[in-house]
């Protein structure tokens, strides 16, 4: 019971902040965005408590969230009044039903149900979750602070230098009585699927939006993470919202989406600090879009919000935890051709069906997500500069930085060769690029043309 109250508080706290930005988001977007925002607010409470030396408990978090909801309940109520007519099930009339859309929805729901059953049935068992995230969350909940006693003995695990959104979320669930915190993965998976569908549907018809949502939801390696307690799926959900809302903000000139994107870029950096490439790409796009109109306020505001959590956590790591982020990187810059070659071959095998290292040939860890995107980009080559070029620009910048981060990692300090890092951390980090490329594929001119043809055929 307490757990349900705790989760509900997360959604309500997130929804109130969302209403402050705009009340025009549809209910699917509200569900999708509220959870990460609510979790961020609560982990920021934990952070403030930690900094001032006041131990956090479930009561502290409950009353802090309650205060936010109480101060903004009028916004939630007016949103409900305004949108209650939209909160209805689709028509179930057999003659008018969109059978393809219904079929794709059912497939998504079945796959979601099965992976969620698995997730909620088994306790945490994967190595990285046990050695790091779940352990950090559990001890944070017991000790009521972020810099837990395990740091003193260097027993925090590799996730100790990550910002506290994910393990703070785990601590939050333990505080509210969860015997296993794995529901956090399911809630992020819901945010990912629902958010992607509602944002893609702004451009294409439901069948196309659902087909691409299915491709995202069942991208094999990502799908398996919906039953694991790792931070890659949450990071993917946050990157998806941060990037797609930015594309929509620029494309449709909607400022509310721009601020939402800035907030989600900050949330992404509050989840994993190796996602800095997405923040740099987003700031570059905002700069390119607004510098002609000399709108420095928007550029500065976006950049400040986006990197605020990164700065906060870097300072905390340096001053409180005393582990600088740079401790994982090489001391001297130089070109390591062997390392570069290994990394490029791994990347090539991830984008295609070819084998490299111990990854099985033709397995296609991400399904057809990358291949289909490459095909659609090639089909859309004539419009490459005029049609959603910012999406590809964002992808290229963020991917280049992501690649460089791994290139600069010191294999000795990491206690793992680059091949091992590519087959574990790098492979999982690739999830973040799937929604970006699928969004481009579904909403570029070729995607919209296919969507319109399908709809024209369906309606005769």
């Amino acid at each position, binding site marked *: 019971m307490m757990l349900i109250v705790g989760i509900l508080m997360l959604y309500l706290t997130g929804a109130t902040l969302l209403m402050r930005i705009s009340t025009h988001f549809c209910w699917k977007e509200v569900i999708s965005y509220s959870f990460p925002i609510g979790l961020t607010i609560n982990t920021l409470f934990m952070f403030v408590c930690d900094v001032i030396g006041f131990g956090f408990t479930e009561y502290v978090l409950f009353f802090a969230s309650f205060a936010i909801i109480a101060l903004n309940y009028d916004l939630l109520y007016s949103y409900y009044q305004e949108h209650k007519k939209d909160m209805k099930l689709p028509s179930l009339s057999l003659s008018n039903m969109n059978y393809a859309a219904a079929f794709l929805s059912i497939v998504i729901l079945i796959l979601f149900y099965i992976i969620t059953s*698995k997730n909620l049935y088994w*306790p945490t068992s994967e190595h990285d979750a*046990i*050695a790091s995230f779940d352990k950090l969350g559990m001890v944070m909940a017991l000790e009521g602070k972020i810099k837990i006693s395990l740091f003193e*003995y260097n027993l925090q695990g590799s996730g100790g230098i990550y910002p506290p959104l994910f393990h703070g979320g785990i601590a939050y669930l333990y505080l509210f009585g969860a015997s296993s915190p794995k529901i956090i993965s399911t809630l992020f998976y819901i945010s990912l699927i629902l958010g992607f569908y509602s944002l893609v549907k702004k451009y294409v018809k439901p*069948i196309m939006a659902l087909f691409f949502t299915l491709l995202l939801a069942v991208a094999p390696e990502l*799908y398996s993470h919906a039953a694991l307690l790792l931070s890659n799926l949450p990071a993917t959900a946050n990157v998806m919202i941060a990037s797609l809302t930015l594309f929509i903000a620029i494309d449709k000139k909607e400022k509310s989406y721009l601020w939402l994107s800035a907030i989600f870029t900050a949330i992404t950096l509050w989840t994993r600090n190796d996602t800095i490439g997405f923040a740099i790409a987003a700031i570059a796009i905002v700069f390119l879009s607004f510098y002609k109109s000399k709108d420095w306020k928007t550029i500065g505001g976006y950049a400040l919000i986006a990197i605020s959590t990164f700065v906060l956590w870097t300072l905390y790591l340096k001053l409180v935890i005393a582990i600088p982020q740079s401790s994982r990187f090489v001391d001297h810059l130089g070109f390591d051709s062997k390392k570069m070659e290994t990394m490029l071959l791994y990347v090539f095998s991830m984008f295609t069906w070819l084998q490299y290292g111990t990854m099985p040939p033709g397995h296609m860890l991400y399904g057809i997500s990358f291949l289909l995107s490459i095909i659609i980009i090639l089909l859309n080559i004539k419009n490459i500069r005029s049609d959603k070029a910012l999406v590809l620009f964002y992808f290229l910048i963020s991917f280049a930085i992501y690649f460089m981060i791994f290139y600069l990692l010191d294999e000795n300090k990491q206690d793992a060769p680059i091949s091992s890092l590519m087959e574990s951390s790098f492979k999982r980090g690739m999830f973040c690029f799937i929604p970006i490329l699928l969004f481009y594929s579904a909403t570029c001119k070729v995607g919209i043309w296919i969507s319109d043809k399908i709809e024209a055929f369906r309606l005769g």
Partner: protein
Amino acid sequence: MKAQSSDKSSQFRRNVLLAFVFAIILLVLYVSIPGYNWAVSEMAFRNKELIDKIETRRLNNNLPELTDEFKRFFKIGNYWYLSYIREQTPQNAVILLPPHEAVDTVAEMTFISSSDWVEYFIFPRLCISEDEKDKKPELYKRVTHVAVVNYWGYDKLKYYPGKMDKDAIFPIDTIKTN
């Protein structure tokens, strides 16, 4: 009226045909891409079948709902040993874990030399692997118990324990301190 009805009927057929086409596309993807096959049949359906089987057997035998503690015995090969460490040591114990080379041939004991991993199961006790003795000398000095795995660790004890089992946990100084 008749034309309208025929239009509706044609639209209905197209609608169904489209759903059928998507079903074929998904089937082709499932059959031809090993990744999808793995995700759907292995990750999803096989796991669901396993859960159903466990639950059916539990219900048939009138057993109470399985706790997370119990489920860990299914998932983690050496959970019995981790549970044994917890039972046999006080909460302020500092446990010496074997080095990687002592357990790398015993599949069941995977990760037992990883202090990051073991710590999750034994908190608030602390642990340190023999491999880390130079990295964490202060904690190494505070060791109160030795995790004997695959006969490794008896030479760390300051006394003769009598019975020498393959896997055990002993206080480092004297058996009476436990």
